[in-house]
């Protein structure tokens, strides 16, 4: 995880991001993605600044952040494991795998334990080699309980 930044540093960085992206047509999503890439989540305190710079209301920015599943309002764990919950992976045992992951980590989806955040995802386009997962942004196919345990053990979880 990125080291904790001072409130001022967060706002300065956000201001730079807005400056970088402001020339785009429809800049808000690219800005929010960049903010999340910089801080690991979209800090509440950046919203008024973004709203102000784009000349839209805070409510509008907040509405956008909350609409999309991707944007986090708090930091995730050090590692993020996204398990596909969609139909083609279900047909290949994704439900049992998800149960296994939840039991092993002792959390439900969206929960964090031992520095690992477990999240559901609806399809990764790996539907012919499911169950599929995205582990810290990297694709994994034909995942089973043993392999998942290995990955989690590698994270010390």
């Amino acid at each position: 995880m990125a080291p904790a930044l001072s409130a001022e540093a967060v706002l300065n960085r956000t201001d730079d991001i807005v400056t970088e992206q402001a020339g785009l047509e429809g800049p808000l999503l690219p800005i929010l993605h960049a903010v999340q890439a910089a801080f690991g989540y979209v800090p509440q305190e950046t919203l008024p600044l973004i709203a102000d710079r784009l000349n839209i209301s805070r409510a509008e920015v907040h509405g956008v952040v909350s609409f999309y599943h991707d944007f986090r309002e708090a930091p995730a764990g050090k590692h993020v494991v996204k398990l596909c919950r969609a139909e083609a992976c279900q047909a290949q045992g994704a439900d049992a795998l998800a149960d296994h992951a939840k039991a092993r980590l002792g959390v439900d989806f969206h929960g964090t334990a031992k520095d690992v955040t477990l999240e559901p995802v609806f399809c990764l386009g790996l539907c012919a080699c499911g169950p599929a997962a995205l582990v810290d942004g990297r694709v994994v196919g034909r995942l089973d309980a043993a392999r998942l345990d290995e990955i989690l053990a590698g994270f010390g979880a």
Partner: protein
Amino acid sequence: MKIYVPRDAAAKALGADAVAAEITEQAKSRGIDVTLVRNGSRGMVWLEPLVEAETPAGRMAFGPVTVADVAALFDAGFGAHPLALGETDKIDWMARQTRLTFARCGVIDPLSVADYEAHGGLAGLRRALSMTSAEIVKETTDSGLRGRGGAGFPTGIKWKTVADAKADQKYIVCNADEGDSATFADRMIMEGDPLTLIEGMAIAGIGVGATKGYVYIRSEYPDAIEVMQAAIGVAREAAVLGTSVLGSGRAFDMEVRVGAGAYVCGEETSLLNSLEGKRGVVRAKPPLPALEGFLGKPTVVNNVISLATVPVIFEKGAAFYKDFGLGRSRGTIPLQIAGNVKHGGLFECAFGQTLGEIVDGIGGGTASGRPVKAVQVGGPLGAYFPRALFDTPFGYEEFAGKDGLIGHAGLTVFDDSADMLKQARFAMEFCAIESCGKCTPCRIGAVRGVETVDRIARGDADAIPILTDLCNTMKMGSLCALGGFTPYPVMSALTHFPDDFRVAHQEAAE
């Protein structure tokens, strides 16, 4: 020696990067000069990572290759080896296809314009640049191409509306949100032959008078995003994009935009809101996006495969393309066969194969070896088909006639361990999670739907007619197909697999 190891996400998910690294390592330690090409996937996912070696006898395939196999492949000089599959193009699965849209996917280096051109690329764009706007639109219409994003709307007619609209700025928006389970054709072409999508968008732009394009790619596709961005870079260097497309004096450029994990943003008006930086709420139509789309300007919104098919239509002619197919479903369709299936992957062929031929013949039945129970066609909003309907030919009207849809042509195979009540519940749950919230039948109906299926699961048979009513309400009263089509998987499960809804009742009564 030239060796190919796919950079396709499915190949990577099965270990392709490690195999590629080991090939480089082995070549180095053996002092063999190897050119490693990270190509797209040929689509035979059960054989990934599929390694190919260029030999005097042709491109030879080996798969599925693990890191541990690499040394032995070198020892064998990429000849006789237990993983050898022969010449790639002669593998039965490849030989049986009609690859038009995917002709280059897995064959070329995705980021080489020279390779692209050597395999027919840019011929379509060059031809389009010699045509008038009206001729480009007519060629597209004459090809019979219909939207591959699911709705099946004729692409040429959509283009005509945009071409005829008067505006200072028009846009081409490529819908690469590909959220449907069992679909990966968009991802595969973006990773394996991104220049064909760029060429298709350029033709669309020249045709309707749009100078700017966007590809809206879902964030769940990090690999596709990376390749697409790189491809736009090489296309600019080669003047395929820019102020003077191939020196024609006509401008077209494009950029990638990344979604943020909302399924509904695949719906075109929701996608446009998202591109504009708003909540991905569905807009009422009219106005059509073709007249008032991105930032209120005339906009073509087309699926990746629709646009990626345009170059071959312009290269070979509308009549050539139209000659393939069945009824009003013209040309070819990249079937994506997924789930519990022996031979899963992408298979491009003319419309018209029956569901049974696809699942049993091409897919080879289930991976588990158990009987096929159901096949969901067309993603989370598509119907579950029982074996009894396996004679249905693959076509838009043919599937609609059986209360289903082909959608983006993804098929999920389930074996007899599937519980269709559970699948019906999931369909409602998914709709509840992904609803944009604009209309009540969808937003509230889906939540009630989950509760109602749970009642049935607890043995309350009286809830079955309630579920049917609810589905009718959602079907009739929803603004878009998320709420409107969720009844397809639910009602097909209930209609074709009534036992799964009754067994639960008996268990509860015991």
